[in-house]
């Protein structure tokens, strides 16, 4: 019966929304501060951020001079 199927589907939607509405949340200020802290703590270990010297960089070939 299609109407009972709709009822079941709607009940699932309501159940899911109830679940989502009740989760614990933190303030954006706190969450943002933690994201920022992670970035700063790991900034030195980020090669794309800090750049890697030619000698240790596997993608740069060791040449005296190179034309790009």
């Amino acid at each position: 019966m299609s109407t009972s199927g709709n009822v079941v589907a709607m009940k699932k939607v309501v159940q899911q929304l109830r679940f989502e509405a009740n989760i614990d949340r933190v303030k954006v200020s706190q969450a943002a501060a933690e994201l920022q802290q992670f970035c700063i703590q790991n900034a030195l270990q980020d090669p794309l951020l800090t750049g890697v010297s030619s000698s240790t960089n596997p993608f740069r070939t060791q040449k005296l001079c190179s034309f790009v």
Partner: protein
Amino acid sequence: MYPSIHPSIHLSTLTSISSSPVIIYVHLAVQQLQTLCFLANFPLAKMAAQEVQPSETIAKLKSESEALKTKLEEERAKLHDVELHQVAEKVDPLGQFVMKTRRTLKGHGNKVLCMDWCKDKRRIVSSSQDGKVIVWDAFTTNKEHAVTMPCTWVMACAYAPSGCAVACGGLDNKCSVYPLSLDKNENLAAKKKSVAMHTNYLSACSFTNSDMQILTSSGDGTCALWDVESGQLLQSFHGHAADVLCLDLAPSETGNTFVSGGCDKKANVWDMRSGQCIQSFETHESDINSVRYYPSGDAFASGSDDATCRLYDLRADREVAIYSKESIIFGASSVDFSLSGRLLFGGYNDYTINVWDVLKGTRVSILFGHENRVSTLRVSPDGTAFCSGSWDHTLRVRE
């Protein structure tokens, strides 16, 4: 007082129609069950009674769902006390970025659709519209393996954590695993293992922490977790209202969750064990083409056809940043973070790659070079380089 529940056929009628003992047995069992339900005040009986007025129930449920949606928005808004870029005002701005193409991988005969890095930080697997899947050594640009799939548009490919196999799929609606042989002459297609079966195209796939399980997403609107050895479906994830286009697993430290994005403009976070959707975000204005977790696992970024990339924080349960510019009008097809999470790389349909400062929300660099849409982009496992694949048939490794 509950209305009486009549079995559909009377026992006496049954015995005259059919001589099969099985039907009578089943019917008796059903009768017993219905009586039990009736006597035990089981909710099933209540629901059967409520079915007398289904439209009233649906209306009641609809209004409850609307009320819950409003409550959800209110709860989220209560905690929205500041913007991410305001918190980041005191952080030093990033300097000029110069990123050069170090390697160009040529060899695909048609659009490159997907790529993935091997954990050894030098091998790359890529798949293309012409059905070919190629494994490259990015340092030397040599092709180490090539497989021809039985279908075109191989939209998904992934490297196994061990580096010993690759998974791929697309219009064949399947995800197949090919063990990589050290013997270059061996025909890889012979050892192919079909793992996943969907009812529409495969849009993305990823191994979990081991070679033993694969997570897939499909145009059929579902995601699924499979056991590679047996091909058995371990868990399926239902909740998207349209094609699921992308997925990403949470970094291993944060547990068993993954995020998926789809054509219904929603990004859903799922619990891999229970199959339940834990959080859902719907702020994009068009299809979400790519999702990627922030390195700490507390947030994820998404790229969409609405020409924006957005950052969603999982603990604040809301969008916390939008990366967009009036001059960017083409969709973002793929996104990835640098190792510290400070940089967000976005590949766009206008052939460029935009590099965003995640904290401040500003663009720090725009990279050219591809001669057609950028379709896929991944930062290498050690963060020293990133690779982009394009409809111009090539892949470029830059840093």
